[in-house]
């Protein structure tokens, strides 16, 4: 097991800066998620840690050793790719054995290792099949087994669930978490899916334009976003943002409740919410509209199914947000600032 650390890492492709001075340090055995929109540099960062891309500048350390100039095979990492990248012409057993053959391990020891890795993922009965005869979930297990068979110190995953359908994805996520907890291996996981990130990560590094915008636990990045990008990237629907007297403030749609529903009436900030449209989604209702006091900025409220209060459209309603659920950001650079008084 090892700690991964990158220092001031930069990667340029011609004029494009893919990774722009990233500092990041994992903890021992941590499940660290790199989350961001496509093109934010998360995959490039992962590929540099793997040794598949050479950084333009900066240093990569794995287990306190500078590996920046080492080829992938010398870094003791394992990687699972988006497409799983199984060798289509080899049986499952040969796929799993391939990294061991490359190490020059003798066949007896190799067979034991393959058995062990296959057992870890419950794919012993698939060993003689070829990848095209496997389901998506089975392919993923084979990819994991191949990655793990060398007993790496760091485990890198590049959107490994995005090729699975929604139902399978939930099960695969469960498997992956269960397995990571059992092995306790430091894991870096790239995804653009915030549900995956929130559900799996011990910590999440939210990336945009080659920079890490915020690094924190799922609670921290969701409830205390470092800037407006993080605030609006996380959450579905995203945080409502309103502009006032030289700064921005925001609140989550689920914190925006009609009067009389919330318990703590005394400490809440009231708004006049004009509802244009209602989306009924069964477990919740989305209310689309605007707030009269703030230049008629569009906002969304999310009411859980437990709030059965009837809301009529094209009318003003009294809504409110708990004071401690308001978040404040600088008007110019969007960075989080201390709470400000709201002027009317």
């Amino acid at each position, binding site marked *: 097991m090892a700690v991964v650390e990158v220092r001031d890492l930069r990667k340029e492709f011609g004029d494009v800066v893919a990774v722009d001075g990233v500092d990041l340090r994992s903890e021992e055995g941590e499940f660290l998620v790199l989350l961001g929109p496509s093109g934010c540099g998360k995959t490039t960062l992962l590929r540099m840690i793997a040794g598949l891309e050479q950084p333009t500048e900066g240093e990569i350390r794995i287990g306190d050793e500078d590996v920046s100039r080492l080829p*992938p*095979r010398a870094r003791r990492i394992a990687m699972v790719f988006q497409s*799983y*990248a199984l060798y*289509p*012409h080899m049986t499952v057993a040969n796929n799993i054995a391939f990294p061991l*053959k*490359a190490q020059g391990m003798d066949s007896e020891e190799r067979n034991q290792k393959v058995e062990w890795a296959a057992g870890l993922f419950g794919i012993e009965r698939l060993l003689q099949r070829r990848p095209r005869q496997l389901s998506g979930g089975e392919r993923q297990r084979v990819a994991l087994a*191949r990655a793990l068979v*060398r007993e790496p110190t760091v485990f890198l995953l590049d959107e490994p669930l995005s090729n699975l359908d929604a139902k399978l994805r939930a099960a695969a996520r469960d498997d992956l978490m269960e397995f990571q907890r059992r092995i306790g291996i430091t894991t870096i996981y790239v995804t653009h899916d915030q549900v995956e990130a929130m559900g799996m990560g011990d910590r999440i590094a939210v990336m945009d334009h080659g920079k890490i915008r915020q690094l924190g636990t799922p609670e921290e990045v969701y409830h205390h976003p470092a800037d407006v990008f993080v605030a609006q990237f996380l959450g579905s629907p995203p945080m409502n943002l309103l502009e006032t007297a030289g700064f921005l403030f925001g609140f989550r749609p689920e914190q925006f409740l009609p009067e009389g529903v919330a318990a703590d009436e005394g400490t809440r900030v009231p708004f006049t919410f004009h509802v244009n449209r209602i989306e009924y989604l069964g477990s919740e209702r989305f209310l689309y509209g605007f707030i009269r006091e703030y230049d008629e900025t569009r906002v969304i409220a999310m009411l859980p199914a437990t709030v059965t209060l009837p809301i009529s459209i094209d009318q003003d309603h009294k809504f409110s947000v708990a004071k401690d659920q308001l978040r404040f950001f600088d008007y110019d650079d969007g960075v989080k600032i201390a709470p400000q008084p709201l002027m009317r």
Partner: protein
Amino acid sequence: MTSTTTRPPRYLGDNPRFLAGLFMSPAVIYIIALVGFPFVLAIIYAFTDISTGNPDLEFVGWATFRRVLADPVFRGALWNTFLFAVLANVLVVILATALAEILIRDFKGKWLVRFLVLLPWVAPVSLATITWLWTLDSIFSPIDWVLRQVGVITENVYWLGRPGTAMTSVIAVQAWRIVPLAAVIVLAGLIAIPKDINDAVAVDGAGFWRKMFQVTIPLLAPIIAVAVLFGVILTISDMSVVYVLTRGGPTNSTQVLSTWAFIKGIEGGALAQGAAVALFLLPVLIGITAVVLRLARRREVL
């Protein structure tokens, strides 16, 4: 409202059936006139004893084939054709795979290398082969000159004048001709290998040779099979390289079926025998094509 779908078009030019026929006709006429007609004629001739001296169509059954088979030159040509096709294509596969591996990389002057690689293919066959004829000349061969200067040989090799070196030369020039096509086919296959697979190989720690023989070549196998198919057919059916370089000589040592058919049928006037020789490998070629295409389809993965 009236339906517009069933009404016949007003003008002939609006009639899709007419247009389809019109647009396809050049290709159809071309194939019938220049491929189909001679092909049928060859089949008919092969079962007659027609010659330029006796142009009557007199059917003799398999007699012409029996006469052709009895000729020792034909049997030599059959063996040479086999040798020629196999050795040239072994060379082609090795060189094309190596070239494709080079061409997929990024380096300075790549366009120039790519241009040079394609040159043998875009140059007219006869012209390119005549260049080789001079290069392998018995007296003025620049290859011999270089070898003499370096001290490897003391007198000229007479490349095209001795059976062994003549066959070697013919095979080498044929390979040189086909390599560009094969390299482009293999390059297309290399490009089609998913990036993730190459990354996985790097992470799994395989070196160059292991990657080449355990991952790249197995994945390329179907496409290499297609390249070989083209190469074999081009080698067996095309007479230009052998004809220009040696005319099958010396003493028929480089005679192949295509040149023998031409020499016998056109130059010698024995039309029926020429046709029989030319048709001889047709079943073999059809068989090879069927097997290779089936293999290529079966090996197609994912």
